[in-house]
Every structure is written in structure tokens, then in C-alpha cells.
């Protein structure tokens, strides 16, 4: 790793990123003074810090390869184990979501399709494969990885997706397989996961040339646990009626807990966000004026329609206050144990809700609906994401029998070509009318 490269990386990470973040803040101020303020309550103050954090992360990324070891990882990978080795970590899923929000996802997916990836596959995967093929990204530049790390707890698709990337980039791929837990968590599966985490640590030590340090692993586990608990506290503020923030806000503020988990700045960020939400709650600030009905959201968001959908709901006094997706990062991480960083990571990452059976999923949705005081559930049937979507029709019937109003909404987390805005908005409106 070259020294100059390292200096560039550090400078971007510590100085330029934060400055750019502030510049963004100034621009936002200028926009506001021109009277283009969006409707509804003022934006969360923390959003600025969020932008700064993520801008810094992506900017530092531009200089990461050659400076520090770089890993591309899935959102469900035990990233904590990478921190003591000084890896810069890239999240292709997060990147794809960002492309989708900026409505560039389809264009990149088309590159992958032209290269030969069929369209009946996950659009995140197509977007990232396209981005890698065309070397195009809205974030400027993504550092070349030394290793790809995937964990099957979110889907089996990641293996295919990462393998394609590994073959295009000619870098090694390591998969941690977290066997699906149909019923109660089983010991032999979690033992298998723990062994693979050990194998992954050995690989990371080899790539980075840094020796394994169990003390440091424990500290990172503690940091991750803290941040996840803070994230959980933030989510819990939406239990207030009216809610001080919405599921749509949560989709945006989830960034750091996914990408920076285990780092102190992540913990600091959620402390700040929690304090702000607590203040909002104290003042009784509502994110949706005249909040009348509260909903649970299941599955990933329709990223490219986030704003339109939230406005459509808000106009009628509907608020999504909790989602299975954002709750996922608060659900199991409190199980981290700094005294047993590997064994506890095996449990944390095996028991992620999407890696567990439908009984767990049903109980989860019921308890979210109850605790967050919801009277309806929106299930996004996500064409791109089969593991998240299989079973939703059964879930919907079960929840309807429980007395909740449910709507299964056809969509996609990235591919707007297989989404019918007219149909979706029509169905959402009819759903809302049914509450009258």
C-alpha cells in the first residue's frame, strides 16, 4: 500500500468529506432561501450529518484502493470482523439503492442485461454488475476490492451476484453460509457459521497483513451493539402518536447502521439522531400533519418512488411508522457479546429475520403492528427480491384475519420498468379509502 495513497485516503476521510458535507448544507440553505422548501415539518437536523457521513465515506472510497485493504460486502455480512484489520468497506447493495434513488439504476441494469444477465433476476445485482462493467457510478468512483465477502443470510442471490462481480474483477470471493433457520435456531447451523467466521478472519488477516486481535474484535462488537441499540431507540420514537418521524425517513437514515456499523462515528451519529427525535417527541412535532392511520411496511422500499409514495400517503393522513426492513438492524444486534465476539456474531447474523421461518415473520409483523400502534400493513411484493416476497400472500391473509387492513403492492426495489405507477397509486388510494 503506498504512502501517498494512504495520505490521500486519510485526507478525504477526515477533511474533504466533511467539508463537502458542509458545502451541501450551504447549498441546501440557499435552496431554502429561494423558497423551495418541501411541504411538511422541517427536515431532521441530523440529515445534514448523515449526508456528511455518507459523502465522506464515498469520497474516501475514491482513494481507498492502494491505501488500505478494500472489501465489498453484503449488508448482512459480519462486517465487525473487518474493522480491526483496517478495511475500507463498500456495500454494493447500498450503492444500488443509491442508484435507484437517483433513478440511474435502470440504466446501469441495462448494461448488465446487454452483457447477458437475464431480466428475471435481482435488479440490485444487475445494477451493480452493470456499474462494474461500465465503470459508471453516481458516486464518482468505487475503489477496487481486494476481496468480496458475501453472507447468505439475506438471500442465496448474493452468491450469484458476488460471484459474477468476482469473476469480472478477478478477485477472490469468500461466502459465509448461514443456513436458513426454519424453526428455532439450531446449534449445528450456528456452529457452522461460527467456524466460517473464523475462516473469514484468517483470510482478512492474510489480505491485510495485520494480525488477529481478539481484544479489538470485542471492542468492535461492543461498538456495533451500542449503535444497533441506539438505532432501536430511534425507531421506537415512532411509537409516539403522532410519530415524530416516518418509515420513509428511516429508509434514509438506515445508511450508517448498514455501512458504518462497528465504527465510533456510527454510534455517535445515532446518539445525535436519538436526541433529536427525543426533542421532537417532547415538542410533539409530527412528521405527518393530522396523522390518522399508522401502517407497517414489509420488504425493501420502492427506492425510486420513495418521495412520491410518502407524499401520497401523507396527504391522506397516513403514516408508515415502522418497517420490517429498518427494524432488522435493531432486532438481533443487541445479542452481540464483546466477550464472545465470534459466537455472538454467529447468532446475530444467523437469526436475522429474513433468514428465519414464516412463523417468526408472522410474529414479528404482529408485534410491530401492535407496539407501533398500527391498523394496517403494506406488503411490498418485490419482484426483485424473492426471499423477502415469497409467503407475503399468506402473511397478508393471516394479518387480515388478525383484524389488520393489508395491501400487497406490486413493485420492485430498483427496476421501474416492472413497476406500474398508475396501478400502484390507484391501489394505494383505494386501500386508504377503505379505512374511511
Amino acid at each position, binding site marked *: 500500500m503506498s504512502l501517498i495513497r494512504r495520505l490521500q485516503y486519510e485526507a478525504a476521510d477526515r477533511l474533504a468529506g466533511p467539508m463537502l458535507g458542509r458545502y451541501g448544507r450551504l447549498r441546501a440553505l440557499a435552496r431554502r432561501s429561494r423558497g423551495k422548501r418541501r411541504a411538511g415539518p422541517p427536515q431532521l437536523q441530523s440529515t445534514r450529518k448523515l449526508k456528511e457521513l455518507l459523502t465522506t465515506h464515498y469520497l474516501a472510497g475514491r482513494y481507498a484502493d492502494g491505501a488500505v485493504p478494500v472489501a465489498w460486502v453484503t449488508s448482512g455480512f459480519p462486517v465487525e470482523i473487518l474493522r480491526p484489520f483496517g478495511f475500507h468497506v463498500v456495500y454494493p447493495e447500498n450503492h444500488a439503492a443509491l442508484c435507484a434513488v437517483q433513478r440511474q439504476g435502470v440504466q446501469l441494469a441495462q448494461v448488465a442485461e446487454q*452483457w*447477458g*444477465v*437475464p431480466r*428475471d*433476476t*435481482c435488479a440490485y*445485482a444487475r445494477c451493480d454488475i452493470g456499474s462494474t462493467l461500465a465503470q459508471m457510478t453516481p458516486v464518482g468512483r468505487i475503489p477496487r476490492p481486494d476481496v468480496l465477502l458475501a453472507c*447468505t443470510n439475506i*438471500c*442465496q*442471490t448474493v*452468491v*450469484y*451476484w458476488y*460471484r*459474477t462481480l468476482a*469473476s469480472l474483477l478477478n478477485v477472490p470471493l*469468500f*461466502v*459465509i*453460509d448461514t*443456513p*436458513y433457520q*426454519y*424453526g428455532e435456531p*439450531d446449534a*449445528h*447451523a450456528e*456452529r*457452522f457459521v461460527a*467456524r*466460517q467466521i473464523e*475462516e473469514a478472519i484468517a483470510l482478512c488477516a492474510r489480505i491485510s497483513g495485520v494480525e488477529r486481535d481478539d481484544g479489538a474484535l470485542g471492542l468492535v462488537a461492543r461498538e456495533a451493539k451500542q449503535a444497533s441499540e441506539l438505532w432501536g431507540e430511534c425507531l421506537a420514537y415512532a411509537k409516539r402518536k403522532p410519530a415524530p418521524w416516518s418509515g420513509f425517513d428511516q429508509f434514509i437514515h438506515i445508511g450508517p447502521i448498514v455501512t458504518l456499523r462497528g465504527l465510533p462515528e456510527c454510534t455517535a451519529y445515532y446518539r445525535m439522531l436519538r436526541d433529536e427525535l427525543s426533542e421532537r417527541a417532547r415538542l410533539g412535532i409530527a412528521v405527518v400533519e393530522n396523522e390518522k392511520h399508522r401502517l407497517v411496511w414489509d420488504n425493501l422500499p420502492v427506492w425510486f418512488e420513495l418521495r412520491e409514495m410518502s407524499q401520497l400517503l401523507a396527504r391522506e393522513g397516513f403514516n408508515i411508522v415502522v418497517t420490517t426492513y429498518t427494524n432488522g438492524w435493531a432486532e438481533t444486534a443487541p445479542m452481540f457479546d464483546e466477550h464472545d465476539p465470534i459466537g455472538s456474531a454467529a447468532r446475530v447474523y444467523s437469526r436475522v429475520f429474513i433468514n428465519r*421461518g*414464516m*412463523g417468526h*415473520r*408472522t410474529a414479528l409483523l404482529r408485534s410491530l403492528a401492535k407496539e407501533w400502534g398500527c391498523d394496517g400493513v403494506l406488503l411490498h*411484493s418485490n*419482484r426483485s427480491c*424473492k*426471499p423477502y*416476497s*415469497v*409467503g*407475503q*400472500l*399468506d*402473511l397478508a391473509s*393471516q394479518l387480515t384475519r388478525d383484524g389488520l387492513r393489508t395491501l400487497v403492492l406490486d413493485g420492485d426495489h430498483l427496476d421501474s420498468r416492472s413497476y406500474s405507477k398508475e396501478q400502484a397509486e390507484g391501489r394505494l388510494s383505494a386501500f386508504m379509502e377503505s379505512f374511511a
Partner: protein
Amino acid sequence: MVVTDEAIRSYLASHRGNGVVLALPVLYPREVLTALDLCGVEVWAHRTPPGCCTQGAGSMQPYLCPTVRGARVLLGQGFEGAIAAVIPHTCDSMQGLAAIGLDMGASAMPVVTFRHPRGGDRASAREFLQAELRAFIASIERIAGRKLTMDRLGDAIELHEGIDRAMRRVLRMRTCIALGDVELYRILRKREWMRASDFAFELRALEQMIDSAATPRKGIPLMVSGMVPEPSDFFEAVDAAGAYVAVDDYAAIGRRLPMHDTQEAEPIGRLIDRMMGAAPCPTRTSDPWSRVRYLVERARAARAPGAILHTVKFCEPELFDVPVLRRGLEEAGLKVLHIETEFEPQMSGQLVTRIEAFVEMLGGGDA
């Protein structure tokens, strides 16, 4: 609920053994069913009554594969008095189906799951597979109400090894058997629903038809790689176009066969070897480049100038391999045609045209 295939129905009427088990594709320890004298009937949804795949759409999204959609109906309505459904972890959708069967009251019979490790052949994976096999055996024993002895399991494995050897020989000597593809595959696919001893008998008859002195088959030899040859008029289209299947890499047939004989003595270890040693398959997350090498070698041995990738609609594991396979095979000089099936009762004219045009292209365009 009855299965539409008359051959299966009449077989099951008199050969149920100790009970029928519904099995879903692809890889599960069939040897264990054999050892307990259970008749495992594997269903890829094409054997379900007409309309099942679309019926499934009432409770399963239309963007899920037809195997999963069809199997959902069978789970719910029962299947030939099956005492259990075996659902291996083949893909995310199949995993979801098992979860629905277990927890959402969607299955009329007990569901037994089987998880294959997905991170490659590492020591930790073999250890997991061992524990998983033991758990699987315990579940089946409970449902069948009988204990499995290691001796019986050893015998069952031996029987399946013999079948594998015979199938490999039949597929290798394919050109020396005076049977059309439709007829040949009708026999080979009995493995999916016959008890092993009965199927071994059928195979022996097939082996006796091998006539190495026979004039080799006319037509263009093709390699086919995919999940399952459905609808079966695929073979008629290939035949009418002037070609035949010389290399079989269907997950339902040739891809199941282990590539090497096992050296293990202990039955569980042998089962692990057999599973880990099966031909490369994306449902077990095999590396696609190793799949390319394996296929190229086989295509060359059979002098096949072209390969048909015959995938099932919405099958992510296979679809993600398509670009790499296409490149790898083309670099090795093979032409590649990719077609998809949704288990429609008949092939569309459009698909038939593509197959014919492909064979015309391989024939040098002199058609």
C-alpha cells in the same frame, strides 16, 4: 389429488413400499428414502394437474418459478397419500415454500427440510452436512415410524451407486441405443418416482439395448444443460430439426450423477461425498467457471458443436450462470442457444423456430 401421469399412478397403485414421500427438486438424500423403503416421488410441477401452476398464483406471486407455484398446490391438497414432503434448500423460493408449508398451515403433510451448504467444499461445510444428514434421517425416521440401520443405508447407497454407473454408461453410449430421445428420457426419468430397486431393473433393460456395433445416430449432436426437459415435446422439436441430445446436463438427470466414486467406508461419509461430488450445479452454488470446464470437456468428447441452455422461467440460480456459460462455451467454439420453459403443456411455435434455426445454423446454413 391425483397425478396426471398414468404411468406413475399405476405404479403407485401397487408399489408404494412403506409409504409415498413427495420430494421437491433438486438435491436431497434419496438414498435415505430407499433405505427406509419409502417411495419418493419427485415433482417439478409438470406432473401436477393442468392449471396447478396458475392456481398456485392465487397464493404465490406470478414471478416465482412454476415448480414452486405448482408444488404449493400439491402441498396444500395432499399428494397420492404422501406421508411427508421433502423440501431441499434449492433456492430462495424453494426455501420460502418450505417455510410456508411448515408455519402457515399450507401443507397437508409434514414438511422435512434439507439444507445443503452454499459456501463451497470446506471442512466446516462437510461437518455441517453431516449434522444436517443426521437431522434429516431423524425426521424421516420419526414420520415413517421406523429406525434406519447403517447397514440398510449402506445397501441403499450401493444400489444408487450402481444406478449412477449404469446411467452414466447409458448416457455415454447414447448413440448406440436405438431409441428416440422422447422414449429414452421417458425411461431415465423414472428415477424421479420409482423405488431404486425397480428403477435399477428398468435400467438393466436399457443397458441391454446398447449395441456398440450399431450405426451411430444421424443428426447433429447437441449438449443440453438446464433443470428438467419439459415439456417433453422439446425432444420432438430437436429431433424434427435434425439433431439429438448427445450430452445431458439436466439437473433432473445427468447433473445428479457424482463425478467420482467415493472412497469413504462409513455410510454418512459416503452420502456427503456423493452430494459434494455431484456435477457442478448452481443450486449448490458451484462455481460457473468449473461448470464451463466440465461442460466443454463433455461436449468435446461427444463432438457436439452446440449447446442449448434450457432454463426454467424465474430460476435465479440458473439465470445468473447464463452469461458466464455463454461466454465460456463460445470461447471453446460452441454455439449457444438459450431457451426458457414455464412447463407449458406444449412448446410455443416461437421456441420450435428457435431450436430449428439453431440446428440450421449448426448445419452451416445449407438448409
